[in-house]
């Protein structure tokens, strides 16, 4: 599913690891900077100085832009800051990828979105007003929850979570983990990768594979 072959980028040198399909994986970096670089490389925003990164068996820097865009439709990336589009309202942000790729209009996903958001602890009564705000009015952790819902709507084969539980209360963290675990198990072969610098912030996350950064650029 994910394969790093001798990748050198930022602080990392000769990074080599593999995450198989169907795995729940934790990648623990030493600091936020390393985490950020790793997520940017996985998302294809930063090109490594050396080595290959394979997603679904395809070298993300060895394929055309069109092929890369098609590949990323199979990935749900939840950015630490949310990565919501600032000039779109929250509900437009949530519906955007599904509307763009599959032509499903925003009003048709309302029920599913409402269910997930109430499950995450949002007040069902005030939800209509809430999702009509611009993302700039929301704190980072709420933007991240919206990005989670946005990513899940696309039913991706690979979910990547960047510091998913940061700044969440214990109760909401528990609900998020429950939801992502359920989502992971819903489809055989779905892969979930949690990336963050502080393992203690996500003690309840049970993973099949834990990769830890050890020293300068080694993850094993």
């Amino acid at each position: 599913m994910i394969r790093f072959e001798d990748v050198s980028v930022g602080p990392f040198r000769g990074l080599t690891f593999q995450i198989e399909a169907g795995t729940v994986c934790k990648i623990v970096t030493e600091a936020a900077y390393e985490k950020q670089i790793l997520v940017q490389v996985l998302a294809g925003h930063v090109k490594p100085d050396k080595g290959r990164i394979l997603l679904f068996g395809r070298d993300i820097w060895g394929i055309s832009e069109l092929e890369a865009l098609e590949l990323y439709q199979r990935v749900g990336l939840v950015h630490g800051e949310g990565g919501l589009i600032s000039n779109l309202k929250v509900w437009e942000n949530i519906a955007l990828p599904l509307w763009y790729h599959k032509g499903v209009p925003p009003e048709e996903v309302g029920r599913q979105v409402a269910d997930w958001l109430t499950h995450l602890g949002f007040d069902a009564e005030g939800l209509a007003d809430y999702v009509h705000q611009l993302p700039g009015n929301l704190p980072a952790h709420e933007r991240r929850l919206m990005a989670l819902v946005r990513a899940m709507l696309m039913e991706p084969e690979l979910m990547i979570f960047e510091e998913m539980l940061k700044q969440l209360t214990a109760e909401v963290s528990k609900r998020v983990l429950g939801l992502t675990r359920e989502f992971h198990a819903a489809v055989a072969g779905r892969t979930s990768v949690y990336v963050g610098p502080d393992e203690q912030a996500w003690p309840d996350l049970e993973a099949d594979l834990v990769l830890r950064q050890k020293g300068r650029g080694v993850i094993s």
Partner: protein
Amino acid sequence: MISTQKIGEKTIGAWTHTVGVFGLLWIAALHLRALHIAPVRQVLYRQIYFSGIEALSKVTLIAALIGIVIITQVSNFVGLHSPLVQRMLVWTTIREMGPLISAIFIIARSSTAVTSELAAMKVSGEIGALRSMGIDPLGYLIMPRVLGVTVSVFFLTFYFQFAAIFGGLALSSVLLDTPLIQHFKNVFEALSFGEVGVSAVKALIFGLLISATSCYHGQRVQHSITEIPQTTTAAVMQSLFFIFIFDGLITVVSFL
């Protein structure tokens, strides 16, 4: 003292930006097929709304005032009863003022907004986030903005011309105490298809250049928020250069 090296660097920079702007126009044309995607059309409609429709009230005021100024100035030289007054109003607004002032208005109002918005989206990682959802930023962000601003400049130019002529003629009508319809008749007599055609060509080219320049500079920033005002200023200056150069070129060619 300006060194030769500095002049060389500036020339190469200007050339690079010019090639970049025309390259972006080409890329935007290649992405026109993305218009079949509903959210892309939504971005286009919003751009036309912000750049075109929301600008109408201010354009009306500015155009009418310019029409009044032209009538006042010309009638001061040739007398209010001279048919030259209406002809001068038509010639100046259709040939020059309409396309040029509409373009400057869009540069001040929309070009700055487009450049700073795209630059802010790039710095905050929103463009990267779009790509990581499999959404092509060129098709979703750039192409509809180029098209939306171009359409807005095109129609605002004709609207400006109408409002300026109407404002000037309304003043003439009041001062001469003659019916407004009579003045419009004189205007239509002074108009030719050639003049309207040249005006349309200018509006179209200005629209394409302003929109592409704004988008080019908007997506040129890297990581720092301090680049946003710098790139916005660069977009404004380059857009102004482009429209004055092309205005001169088209005007000269149209009289050959």
